[in-house]
């Protein structure tokens, strides 16, 4: 190894430094999920679908949050957040006009180019819509490049359904085949009831010529992957996005390791054949 003879050049600062952004609007999606918009005029964040940011609340802390807006609209950057703990609850309670900190984008995006010329099948559970929404929006902008575009979307109950206006719009213009299901119905729900994985064997798409984007709780992704493999989709064309505790986003804090992978840097998007054996080891 090298000894440094002369002073090394200290690289540009700031890999871990948040930048302030003013919240332009807070849109309540459900009782515990909000979409927070900022208008990053000064420091736009160019991102690809599936990438995430570290979002900071003054004095509270940071959380890894996927970018849920349209990559082609740099003037609007959105994050959709479910309140589960300190930071995410504080984000849910924000008022427009407040400043938050953002650094990013981080991580490996969804392989949308690979899906061109094929069917694009998106399967989500709950807040799992957030990281795939930019992919769907981008695919619809270039609709002609894809075969079928199918969305299987699960939620615990009708009141937990996020991005309803998107769903209504996509449903109406028929450019995308939307299937929504809830785990448990309430009065007035006329849609499907049951777990989203149950839909996989039935919906029309070409298993041998498709790319799958899968995002939800790990068990849901596990069962979905099994169902997809059962239908003949090759493991290397099933993509999942994984969640682990993340403190840095840049491969240095060590928290997000799964085997030899740093999820923040090598992922969070992986093909099923890259991670299935690792996810199969309990508590790895």
């Amino acid at each position, binding site marked *: *190894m*090298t*000894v*440094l*003879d*002369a*002073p*090394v050049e*200290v*690289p540009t*600062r*700031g*890999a*871990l*430094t*948040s*930048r*302030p952004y*003013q919240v332009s609007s807070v849109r309540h999606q459900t009782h515990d999920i909000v979409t927070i918009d900022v208008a990053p005029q000064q420091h736009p964040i160019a991102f690809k679908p599936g990438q995430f940011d570290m979002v*900071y609340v*003054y*004095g*509270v*802390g*940071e959380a890894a949050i996927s970018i849920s807006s349209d990559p082609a609209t740099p003037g609007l950057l959105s994050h959709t957040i479910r309140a*589960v703990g300190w930071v995410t609850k504080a984000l849910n309670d924000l*008022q427009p*006009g*407040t*400043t938050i*900190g953002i650094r990013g984008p981080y991580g490996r995006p969804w392989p949308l180019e690979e899906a061109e010329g094929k069917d694009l099948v998106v399967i989500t559970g709950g807040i799992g819509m957030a990281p795939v929404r930019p992919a769907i929006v981008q695919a619809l902008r270039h609709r002609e490049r894809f075969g079928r575009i199918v969305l299987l979307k699960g939620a615990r109950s009708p009141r937990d359904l996020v991005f309803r206006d998107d769903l209504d719009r996509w449903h109406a213009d028929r450019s995308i085949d939307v299937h929504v299901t809830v785990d448990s119905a309430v009065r007035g729900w006329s849609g499907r009831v049951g777990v989203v994985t149950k839909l996989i064997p039935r919906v029309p798409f070409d298993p041998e010529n498709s790319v799958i984007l899968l995002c939800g709780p790990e068990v849901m992704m596990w069962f979905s992957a099994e169902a997809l493999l059962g239908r003949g989709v090759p493991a290397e064309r099933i993509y999942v996005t994984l*969640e*682990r*505790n993340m*403190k*840095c986003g*840049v*491969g*240095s*804090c*060590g*928290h997000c*390791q799964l*085997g*030899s992978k*740093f999820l923040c*840097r090598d992922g969070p998007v992986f093909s099923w054949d890259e991670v299935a*054996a*690792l996810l199969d*080891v*309990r*508590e*790895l």
Partner: protein
Amino acid sequence: MYAPEVEAPAAVVLPASGLDDLLTALTGRGYEVRGPTLRDGVVIHDRLTGAQDLPRGVGDEQRPGHYRTTPREDDALFGYAVGPSSAKRALFPPRQPLWSAVSVGDADFEIREADRPSPRVALFGLRPCELAAIAVQDRVLLHGAVPDEVYTANRADLLLIGVECGDPAATCFCSSMATGPGTDQGADLLLTELLGGEHRFLLRAPTAAGQALVADLDTRPATEADLAARDALLEDAAGAMERHLDTDGVHDLLLGNLEHPRWDDIAKRCLACGNCTLVCPTCFCTTVEDTTDLAGTTATRERRWDSCFSLDFTHTGPASVRNTTRARYRQWLTHKLATWIDQFDTSGCVGCGRCITWCPVGIDLTAEVATIKRTSEDPDAPARS
């Protein structure tokens, strides 16, 4: 940047009485010198004002879960092995302020980055395993995808002065990891303490900075006898090493045995205290803390060492991923000896033995690896990384 020497200059000899001149030469060049010194019965790294601060005539006794300094019968200045502190403390400190958010009005704030000076520091008396540990940290924190700003700043104006080992502890296994007891690289200046006959130091300077230092000292050329004394010293040291780790195939051995019953056995003894990660010179995991001042006008973000042994480390949503001690010890050991190689093309272990000595229950990774190897159910099981 790095300028490898075309030809290694010949070794020279400095009488033990001249060591103070070396320290003076360093301070004269503006370096803050940090090196081994005795504090509360433990050899640690701290600021040195002169050779009188070195632990003279001090040895040590190390075993799993046991450390004690002992008097020696000679005047050796480096007659002990590594203590609990390592260069990591200086280059990647336990607490590192990152930035502050200073509030402006009710709902707005500005970011102020922490000062990041590059202190002019000479780390003195580092053992070959410690130099190797710096080389490992260089790979992780300097040459990684995103160079770490704290490490890079502390590394920028650093001088390294190594000392070869004549008296390894019973917990050392550097010869297995090919990091010691002798070395030709990793430092600006390398010392070998020779005790038989005249108390003297053999000096070798692999870099220009080291050579410039040597030029300031009153030395004589090394003789065949001096060089032979060094060879004998290193041979004895390697021969005295009680512990060994069989690195051959250890990557696949561990990753192919993720469900080995030995992990359960270790978990019965391990307290998940994290001592091993704190004393390890290569462990780099960190977490961050946000604190707000009393007035609520400044929120400071600080990074501090973390340990994969803590339950919070993998907290995600309703629970942690690694709930059991079994999973946490397995993560630590497989990272050190296996996945580290995939990530950084080097082992994460340099064989310093600190984790063995400072483990309160004396868990010894070399013994655990040997047991897994001996009892590996399926030596051909696929390695998962």
